[in-house]
């Protein structure tokens, strides 16, 4: 009997140990290495790195730009996202499901694809404008190559994020709180101003913080729009320094990435402060607010909403597809000049591009599968575990994703620049370092839905198996795994979709032979081959839509809110 007990505890220990090891390797270690480089370079305490970073004018300009586009993009995303969330949640507009799907889709498309697509809509070489005869003369600068352009695209990219968070908050708003105000004589707009918006403050502030962190860390949009205009933000400055200077500038870029991390953290801390000021806790649960009848305004509002979709989703995608059909620079696109040659070239002829598809598919698939298998036991410990310190470790899993991707990429570089001690394997300049970064960065995307799944599941199911005599591993395998697998797999799918077109991390970690699709698109565009970049992007958008469709097929088996685009 004593042996059995010890064995049971042994399984628990093994599980906890494995999870702690994973958290250390993928989360604590890279962050610690990064900090060490900044304050303890070569093992000696020194503030030289910080000092030399602080006196550089470049640093200050890029920091200022980062804050400017970060705040601007956040503001734009907030206005758009909150307005749309209010209209969708509080009025009787029709076709809500389809609208939400379309509105959230930009979030699923990689930022650099968004940037590329929009570039094809504006500017002198835009096939769309050329077809309409509205293109500015050749040589005119594309208006999107500017700070305003970056703010505009960041806003469109992250408005769905704001929308999703605020909509979730509005759904939990008990209808009585609104009805009590109406009975007190308040009209619709007064209710909105004095009740609904104040009560949504936590959601709105939370969304703002998340959006700010995403904007500040975004690489794709400022890389496509800012670099040509020499408008650098911190992530693009890091990229340029590293591309020009190689490992020699590692200390400098480590400092810059810590700077981004600090800016992101300030955003999160501010959010915490702001939402702590007042009591917004909604304790009662009830039906959600009765939709407001728009009456004769309904067709007009619906038309406006779909025009918005046409602007933010259809227009750029049309631009993208048209460019992918253009045979060469400056050629006006029409039925006789359109060609599929670009698609053939990127899929079959171009070696790096072919390799990129293969690498990205493999990397995202491995990252997704790994995350699913880690997320299930990890979620188990977080949601149902009894050890408090393990639960606290959960926060550190969030860290590599909460911080901008550049931070993690630099940390991975520092960690693996030299061969791994003891086993003496060099993974720098191979595809493995990208895999490591993906595993670390995206793990949390599978952990979150899995933990949600655990909380929605009755623990008695597992306890019944325990009473029946099943040990921890047997329970995990036979009871927990089958029940939680759909949620974890939905997370895996999100990882797959996110990693497939990922650019921020791979732009800093790629090497010849280890390209990703994101890097391929970026290289084509930088080399002036927009048509090839557009072709690759169009393929990736199609794959994204396909994956969303597939996920939708088994959506009914998933916990609520796991697939962001399903209303």
């Amino acid at each position: 009997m004593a042996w059995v007990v010890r064995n049971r505890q042994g399984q628990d220990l093994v599980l906890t140990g494995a999870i702690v090891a994973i958290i250390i390797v993928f989360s604590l270690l890279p962050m610690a290495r990064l900090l060490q480089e900044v304050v303890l370079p070569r093992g000696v305490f020194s503030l030289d790195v910080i000092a030399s970073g602080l006196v550089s004018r470049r640093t200050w300009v890029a920091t200022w730009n980062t804050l400017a586009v970060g705040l601007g993009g956040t503001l734009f995303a907030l206005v758009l996202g909150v307005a749309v969330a209010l209209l969708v949640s509080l009025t009787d507009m029709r076709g809500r499901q389809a609208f939400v799907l379309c509105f959230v889709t930009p979030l699923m498309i990689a930022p650099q694809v968004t940037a590329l697509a929009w570039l094809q809509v504006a500017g002198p070489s835009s096939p769309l404008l050329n077809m309409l005869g509205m293109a500015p003369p050749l040589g005119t600068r594309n208006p999107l190559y500017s700070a305003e352009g970056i703010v505009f695209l960041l806003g469109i990219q992250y408005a769905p994020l704001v929308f999703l968070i605020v909509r979730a908050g509005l759904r939990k708003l008990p209808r009585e709180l609104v009805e009590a105000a109406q009975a007190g004589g308040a009209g619709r707009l007064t209710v909105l101003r004095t009740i609904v918006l104040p009560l949504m403050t936590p959601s709105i502030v939370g969304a703002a913080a998340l959006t700010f962190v995403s904007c500040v860390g975004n690489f794709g949009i400022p890389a496509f729009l800012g670099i040509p205009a020499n408008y650098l933000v911190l992530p693009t400055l890091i990229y340029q320094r590293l591309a020009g200077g190689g490992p020699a500038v590692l200390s400098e870029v480590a400092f810059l990435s810590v700077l981004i991390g600090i800016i992101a953290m300030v955003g999160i801390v501010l959010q915490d402060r702001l939402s702590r000021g007042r009591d917004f806790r909604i304790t009662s649960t009830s039906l959600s607010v009765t939709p407001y009848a728009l009456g004769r305004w309904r067709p007009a509002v619906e038309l406006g909403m779909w025009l918005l979709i046409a602007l933010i989703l259809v227009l750029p995608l049309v631009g993208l597809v048209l460019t992918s059909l253009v045979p060469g620079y400056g050629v006006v696109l029409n039925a006789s000049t359109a060609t599929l040659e670009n698609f053939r070239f990127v899929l079959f002829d171009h070696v790096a591009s072919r390799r990129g598809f293969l690498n990205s598919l493999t990397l995202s698939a491995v990252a997704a599968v790994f995350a699913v298998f880690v997320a299930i036991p990890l979620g188990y410990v977080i949601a149902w575990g009894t050890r408090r310190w393990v639960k606290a470790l959960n926060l550190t899993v969030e860290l590599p994703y909460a911080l901008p991707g550049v931070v993690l990429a630099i940390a991975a570089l520092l960690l693996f620049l030299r061969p791994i001690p003891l086993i003496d394997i060099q993974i720098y300049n191979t595809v493995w370092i990208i895999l490591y970064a993906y595993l670390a960065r995206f793990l949390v995307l599978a952990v979150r839905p899995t933990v949600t799944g655990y909380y929605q599941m009755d623990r008695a199911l597992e306890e019944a198996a325990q009473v029946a005599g099943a040990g921890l591993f047997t329970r995990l395998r036979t009871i927990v795994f089958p029940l939680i697998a759909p949620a974890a797999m939905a997370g895996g799918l999100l990882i797959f979709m996110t990693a497939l077109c990922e650019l921020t991390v791979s732009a800093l970690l790629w090497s010849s032979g280890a390209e990703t699709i994101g890097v391929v698109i970026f290289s084509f565009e930088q080399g002036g081959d927009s048509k090839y970049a557009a072709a690759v992007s169009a393929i990736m958008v199609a794959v994204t839509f396909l994956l969303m469709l597939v996920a939708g097929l088994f959506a009914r088996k998933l916990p609520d809110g796991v697939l962001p685009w399903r209303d």
Partner: protein
Amino acid sequence: MAGLTIDAVTKKFGEMVALDRVSIDVADGEFLAVLGPSGCGKTTLLRLIAGFEALNGGTIRIGDRLVSSESENVAPEKRRVGIVFQNYALWPHMTVAENIGYALKVGGVGRAERDERVKKALALVNMGEYGERRPANLSGGQRQRVALARCLVAEPRLVLFDEPLANLDVHLRAAMEDEFADFHKRTGTTIVYITHDQAEAMALADRIAVMDHGRLMQLASPHALYHQPENEMVAAFISQGMVLPAEVASAAAAGRCRVRVLGQEVVVRCAPGEAPRAGAAICCRSSQLAPAADGEPGFDGRIARVVYRGGAARIEFVPDAQPGLALHFDQPDPITFAPGDRARLRLADGWLIPRGAGA
């Protein structure tokens, strides 16, 4: 204050008829309870009166003013009704005083007058000290008082209560019941009080409207509901009444008539104008059933269950004449019946349910 006239109101949700031609008149200053099992349509009725839903037929008037009809629906904010919600619906981002003063602020009442009226409203519900508190820091009973003060401060023409005591524990419920009754006496407000709790309705209301499946079953005083139910639903619903099949043997005379029930002939109370008929039903209470003494008329049967409830037991009895029927009565200590025993019961009184009052 104003009365309320609900005339032939019908409400459909898609195919489902939630309210079917319901008509209720509430007099100025009356306390009316709307009572029914869950899903009977009572909450829909309240939401129609408040204006949160549009109706499909009939009219609602508050005082002389038409507020709801098929073609017209006055917005909730223009109706001047007060509502006390089951979950209180206090705004968590405002203090107690801000909650109460909200309607005045929205209505453009000046600051000085507003403070004065908020203070008065707080005093009215004995919460004078709590103006600066947050709703989250109040107990359930205190929250309900704040909700009450909030709906009164704007001097509504009508106050609606939506199961206001359902979230409170038993002791607090009794105390709040007293407070509501006292409050009604002092202010003379017209009140429509939605509840599924009979004891609450009986204790508070001048009249009770019993509803079932979207229809008004009976609108009467608590006393009349108990003693003269108009149909089998009300008879069975109020105080667990028993409905027994009966045959009317004589015409009504001085409010009574002879009926034949389970082979026994009994004199029961009845409405005027009753005539001999078959297929009738009577309503009786457990207090009207008792074991028959030797030689007394009665009906035979078997004891099915004995449930001891402290001081007395509830005895369940199945009559031989109609084995599908389950009757029950109380026997005080000492309990002499045991399951399986044979027994003979006697019916002392009852009420003949009027003909045709549909159920």
